Every structure is written in C-alpha cells, then in structure tokens.
C-alpha cells in the first residue's frame, strides 16, 4: 500500500529494460518500495538490471515477458501479473520507440510502427492496467508522455504525434478514474539522454533518466497529475504552444 506521504511498496514497470524504467525502479526501491516487477521483451536485459534494483533496497524482484505490439495478450498479461504478485501501488508504462523520422515520412510502415508501440500498445495495456487498479481500489498508473506531444515539431512529429495521442488518452483516463481510488499521472520529460536517444543531438534543457525518476517519485509523493521534467519545461512549453506556426516551424528544435 502507498502511505500517507505517497511512498509506495510495490511497482510494475512495463518497459522494464528502458533506462527511465530502471532508474525509476531504483529510485522507488531506495524509498522503501519492496517489490518490483519488470516487464518487457528482452528478459535477459531486464535480469541484468535486477541486481542494481535489489541493491537499492527492493527485497523482491521479478521479470515477466511483455510485448507492446501483441495487444491481444495485454489483458491476460495484466491479470497474470496481478494474480501472481497481488497489488501494485504503481504501474509505470515506460516503453516506447523514437523511430526514424526521415524514414517514417516516406515509409508508412515505419510510421505505423511508432504509433503501434507508443500509442496503440500503451493505450491497450493502460486499459487493462486501469481495470486492475480500479478493482484493487487504489494505485497510480504512471505514463511516460513527452514534451514532443505538447506541440508537434517538424523534426519529430511522428514520435510527437504518438505521444500526443497517449497523453490525451491518459488525461481522459485520469478523469474516468476519479472516485475509484486509482489515478493516473502523466510524465512529460524533455530530451532525455538515454539509450533511446543515443546519437541524437541533445536539445536544450536535456535531462537524464535519473532526473525523470526523481520527478516521478516526487509526483507520487505530492499527488501530482502532470509532471514536467525538468519542471521549467512546463513554462517553456506553455510559451512555445502559443508561438505562430511559421515562427515555431523555424525554431531549431
């Protein structure tokens, strides 16, 4: 159970080999989270991350297979993992792909792949997870959106549109969960230096998986519905949101 100060005791990280997923697992473990389950495609990669999560303080850890594209399996995946491990105070949806923007602009299949993972896959597993949280009467569904979803940019609008979709879905889901004991927290990081962005030029206000993890822990404690990382991204984006299109298009971001 989460306590009066928002500390949690159990977490399911979907996208369990992602840098942000693992960093969050470690940060939670360091704050008293005893049971952490990583879910993802690459079981060996996730197993390799378990010792560090264990050392951070989680007494009980496990890995389970999960495939974002296999949406038919999502409901039974959630039922199984909740059945085997009982309650989860936090379910973190941390998987995603950046995709190749240039390729996706001419190759429909490449664009669809980004949308299938980031939007359709995330939405599908969130529906199942929300059902489980509603049933247990408590818990936070944390979803990684992105500032890229706030306003589509010329340089990565395929990725950005998929994040815009899941962000909008998560906000609506959050409203639908009011009164159920479960809630949704949307996390909107800026550019995060991680495996996913390897080789990319860091954008201004670039952040790290560890900083995102700390922001998530902070948001769980304060009961936030939206978390920006770094927090000043919120003000930057609220300015950018109102720029005229021709100006926004020409910005080097």
């Amino acid at each position, binding site marked *: 159970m989460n*306590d*009066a100060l928002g500390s949690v005791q159990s977490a399911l990280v979907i996208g369990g080999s992602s840098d942000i997923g693992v960093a969050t697992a470690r940060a939670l473990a360091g704050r008293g989270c005893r049971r952490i389950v990583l879910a993802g495609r690459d079981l060996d990669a996730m197993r390799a991350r378990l010792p560090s999560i264990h050392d951070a303080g989680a007494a009980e850890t496990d890995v389970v297979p999960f495939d974002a594209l296999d949406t038919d399996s999502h409901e039974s995946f959630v039922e199984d993992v909740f059945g085997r491990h009982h309650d989860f105070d936090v379910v973190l949806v941390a998987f995603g792909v950046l995709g190749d923007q240039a390729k996706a602009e001419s190759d429909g299949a490449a664009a669809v792949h980004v949308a299938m993972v980031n939007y359709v896959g995330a939405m599908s597993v969130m529906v199942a997870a929300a059902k489980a949280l*509603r*049933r247990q*009467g408590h818990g936070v569904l944390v979803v990684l959106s992105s500032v890229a979803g706030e306003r589509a940019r010329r340089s990565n609008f395929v990725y950005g549109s998929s994040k815009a979709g899941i962000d909008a879905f998560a906000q609506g889901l959050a409203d639908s969960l009011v*009164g*159920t004991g479960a809630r949704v927290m949307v996390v909107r990081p800026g550019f995060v230096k991680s495996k996913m962005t390897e080789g990319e030029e860091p954008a201004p206000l670039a952040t790290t998986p560890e900083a995102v993890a700390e922001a998530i822990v902070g948001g769980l404690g304060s009961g936030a519905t939206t978390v920006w990382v770094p927090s000043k991204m919120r003000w930057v984006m609220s300015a950018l949101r109102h720029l005229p299109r021709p100006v926004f298009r020409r910005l080097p971001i």
Partner: protein
Amino acid sequence: MPTDADLASVPPEGTDPEVRPSPDAANAGAGPHPTGLGAPRAGGGHHLPPGGDDVLLNGWGRTAPTRARRHVPLSADEVGAIVDAADRRGVIARGLGRSYGDAAQNAGGLVIDTDALSGVLDSDLDPTQGRGSISVAAGTSLDELMHWLVPRGWFVPVTPGTRFVTVGGAIAADIHGKNHHAEGSFCEHVTSMTLRTGDGETRILTPSGSPEEFWATAGGLGLTGVVLDATFDLIPLETAFLTVDAERAADLDDLMARMVDGDERYRYSVAWIDCLATGRSLGRGVLTRGDHAKLSDLPFHRRPQARSFKPASLFSVPGTAPPGLVNPLTVRAFNEVWFRKAPRRRRGHIESIPWFFHPLDGILDWNRLYGPRGFLQYQFVVPTAAGETVRHVIEKLSRAGTASFLGVIKRFRPGNPGPLSFPTEGWTLALDIPIGRPGLGPLLDDLDELVVEAGGRIYLAKDSRLRPELMAAMYPRLDDWREVRSKLDPAGVFRSDLSRRLGL
C-alpha cells in the same frame, strides 16, 4: 444477544439455506453494480446482502484514500453474511473514521460501517456501591454514551481526545485517555465482548475465559473479527464538571519533573507541549490535571444542573479550507498565545467534560484545517528511563521546522497483555503534523529509529506511514498475536489497508 459471561461458541449464523443462499447464486442478490467497480466475488462463496455503495474512504488525517464497497448492516446476522461473503480482498469494520491513518479502510474490498449497530443493550448501575457496568452495541459512540450516562451519574472508564469514536473502535485501538497513568486503557475495563470471527463463529470473549482471543482483539485493529457488542465498567460521577489544576512548565525537564512528582494525586493528567520552542524553552508546556468535581465543588448556581451534558459545536471548518493554514508561522503564533494565556498556576478551576476532554470536538471537521493534502499524527511511547528520547524527537522536529499544531505528552502506567495494545509504561508524545514539507518521510523514519532504540513503539491506530520492517521490534509479541489471529481467522478474511501496508 448472548449474555453468557464465559467463552461460548454459538453455531454460525445463517446455516439455514433460506438465510444463506447457495454459492452458485453468488452475486445474484447484490443487484446491478452502479459503477461496475465491484471485484468479482471469487472467495467466500456466499453472496452479499443487498445494498452497499462504492465509496472512497480515508482516515481522519485525510491521506491515501482508497475505494471500498461499504455496507451498513442492521443486525449481527447481516454482519455475519457480509463477513462470509468477503473474497480475498477481505473485509474490515469501520466506526466513525477517527483513526488517523488507514486502519479502517480496505481498498477493493468490503467495509462494514457499524453506524446502525448502536444503542444500550443492558445496564447494571448501583450508585450506592459506586459500581456500574453497561452493555452496548459496538457502533455506539462515546458521544451517545455520555449523553445517556452523564445525566444518570456515570461516565465511561476511558475517553480519548474526541467523543466521536465507537465502542468497537475503542476496543480495536485499545484507546487510552488522560487517566492511563491511573486506570489503564479502555480494554482493561471491558468485561466481555461478542466477536464475529472469520471462521463463521460468534464468540463471547472475556479476559478470564478466553484471555488469548480477548487480548488479541484488544488493540487488534479489527483484524481478529467484528466486535458486535461489549460490556464494560463505568465510573460514578456527581457532576458533569471537573476540578482542574493547571500549571506552566518552562522547559521539558521542568514539565517531566512536575508530572513524575504529582500525577499520582490526579485521576486525569496531560500536558500540552510547544514543539516549536527552541533553546532554553525547548519542551515548554502547560500541564492540566484534575478529577471529576463533587457537587460541593460547584458554585451554588450550577448545582441544580450539575449533571447536564450539552456539548456545543462552535463552528464547522468548510471543505474549501486552503492549503498551508497550518504552517510554522501560524503554529508559532498559536503556541505563543496558548502558552501565555495559560495561568502560571491555577487550582481548582471548574471545567465542563467537553472542555476538559474534547476541546477539538467543538470545531466540527477540524481536520480540514490542514488543507487538501491532510496531516498525520505521530504518537510514540518510550520507557520512563528514556525521557531523553522525547527531547531528541522534539529537537529534531524543531530543527526541521516541522510545524506541530498539537503536541501532547503524558505518562502511561504498565500495559496490558494485548500483544498489539499500544500503551506501555513510560512517556508518550503525540504530534499532529501537516503533510507537504519535503523530507518529512525520511525525518519520521529517523524518529522511528530513535523510538525503537529506546525500546518504544508507534501507535498503530494513528499510524499512516510506518515501515513494516520495524513492526516486530516495536511489538515483540507480534508472532503471538498472529498465531491467535490465524486461529480466529484461518482464511485471512479480515484485512485493511493498514494490514496490507504493515504486512499484518
């Protein structure tokens, strides 16, 4: 209601198929689920009685709300039917929700609201001998009881800082009051109780006939079963007033010395403590002690209405109270005024029962003062020899600038056989702390370590954030309790958010 004073097991209620429908009719009678939130009732095998609603519940501190299905049974039979229908998310009884934390909520499961199980069942009052006892249904509140008892010249054996607790809750938390140093906790005055357990039985528990079950239930946080009714001893009164001596103490040493020196002379004793005072004034406070006033203590004009009990509520805090009202500045100002307005020394002041025991009950919904994020109460007890720990705790809080609006210190006499009953001999300090200041969690974790090192413990009925690792150190007889509990509730039907959080 069975009245046999010894342990007696009566057959489970509702073995008649007409009373208890067959398992394959599960859910049929529960009616359509308005919000579709109900968990599939896989366990139990018995169906829920009709009625019940999905509600978000939290404790008095207004933190960590969770959703449960709440039922308001009208009879002991209905309580039994709900307990039998519980699935693996379990069931817990809830009285007036005055536990600060998550003791009376049950995420995704069932909550039995005891509101309708109230009233006096029997009484045996003998004013000539000065001995009285009363049997009441478990949902009866101490407020209702006082309205009934005080005009008749009797009083509850123990009252906490609020009248708005039920007798069932008083047993589940084994509550204490200002008279603990003299008369112990509530359950020490209970002579018998009826408990509906998870194995389908209804048991009558007495301290002599069934000590293990009785004391596992005293302070057992509702996890051994649902208390249906209880019989306990009363104390006689001549008036609805108290004679109170008040004195100011300049610092913690002074305060503790005064308490050690004079508490035996008083039935009731408590001290308010200023947790923001630092340096030489650290731990300064106001000590108030007294006893029930005799008729001859009252001024003449009050004697005709000597046992009139009419507590008034001054006002109610609106639900829109803004965050941050309780902060170091406002608390410091309040504490200064409270300390200065207290007399240096005053003897024989006449105070009413509500004013002396339940001053905060005069402000309805005062917990809203802490704003939307709520607050917690940190209450611990350490052995008499570990008075220094009290100082360290106050120092740490004071240094961190953590505002505690209400700090209360008192002495306990040795505890009772209840493995989870909180009071043990020594000093207890209770502090209300608003949620919000960063670092509060780690700070309280540090305080827990100090308390454990000193051989002390945290009051579970007020807890909302203790880590399970410390449970066994704080309650060394935890395993004894677990053993009795697994006998009374083999399937683990009784569950609460607190039991999940602490792994009970």
